[in-house]
């Protein structure tokens, strides 16, 4: 499955991760093209419904990137996001998609290299997990595996 290219949705806080992504771009840093970024006014805008929607519409992984703890522009948005991510992870486990396909990262607007690192880390993690059970590629993978086993 080394050719598996996961689709990852990154919900990025405007005040940190989104600026960090900008910085990563200005610094000409390379990071995997698997990331689809969605700007949030604050990671506290994270909504479990929207996270689930991302998975339902074909994302193999999702992450929310918010400010460093204690640095939220709106004081506690990132702490709230953290709690919601924890709850959404539980839900994903219950559904059978797996909570480890969802992560929360904290960084600041000046951490361009860290943004690229996070994108790498997440892509690697999802690649290891393989396609989401809702992804048609998952079925193909399973079928191939069972054929190989039969042989």
């Amino acid at each position, binding site marked *: 499955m080394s050719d598996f290219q996961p689709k990852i949705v990154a919900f990025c806080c405007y005040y940190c991760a989104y600026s960090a992504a900008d910085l990563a771009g200005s610094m000409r840093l390379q990071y995997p093209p698997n990331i689809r970024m969605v700007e949030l006014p604050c990671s506290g805008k994270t909504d*479990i419904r929207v996270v*689930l929607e991302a998975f339902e519409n074909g994302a193999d992984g999702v992450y929310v990137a918010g400010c460093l703890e204690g640095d939220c522009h709106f004081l506690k948005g990132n702490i709230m996001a953290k709690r919601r991510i924890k709850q959404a992870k539980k839900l994903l486990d*219950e*559904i059978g998609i797996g909570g480890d396909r969802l992560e929360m990262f904290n960084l600041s607007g000046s951490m361009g290299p860290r943004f690229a690192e996070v994108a790498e880390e997440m892509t690697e993690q999802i690649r290891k997990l393989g396609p989401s059970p*809702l992804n048609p590629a998952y079925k193909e993978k399973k079928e191939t595996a069972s054929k190989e086993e039969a042989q």
Partner: protein
Amino acid sequence: MIVAEGKPIAEVAKLIEDANKVLVVGCGGCVTVCLAGGEKEVGILASALRMLRKKEDKPLETVEITISRQCDPEYMEQLEKYITDDIDAVVSMACGVGVQFVAERFNKWVVPALDTKFAGGALEHGVWGERCGLCGECILYKTGGICPIIRCSKSILNGPCGGSQDGKCEIDTEVDCAWQLIYDRMKTLGKLDKLLEIEPIKDWSKSRDGGPRKVVKEDVMIK
């Protein structure tokens, strides 16, 4: 308000395993306030059920609607256009009352998505506590506004009992002794003498003794 909590997704999925299309009905009353069965939770449950079924290769179609209150026939009318022939089951995200009202009104398989817990209030964001035992005859005026029926583990009316230790109940050190709270409150209010009155046996016939209860207020009846 009535406080409820969502059932595990797998449990709800099991209840509708034969259905191909379900109507997920939220309630805009108490369960919206206690974040268990409002519009948002309807969206989350419906999405979770769809994904779970898609994963099992048995796609599920969902229709989502949240009405103002499921415990009122007036609002139930809004549901009529959503209860079409192709709906195999209705998942009600209301308290037990709402589930029954939907089931009584429509000839459909209705399942609850919540576990109804108690009549209570918000202690802080995300935390709700039980406050009323629905006993049918309020005695809060005798106890400084603290209900011994539901907040005392034994529901005793002449407390505290011997299990009260350092203001806590013997069942759990986290649980306050209701009678300690009552005593402290009455002391603050300077009404300790009221506690000297012997409380007669409570008339439980006004509670759940005589089967399901009904309240009739003739002056507002239309028929």
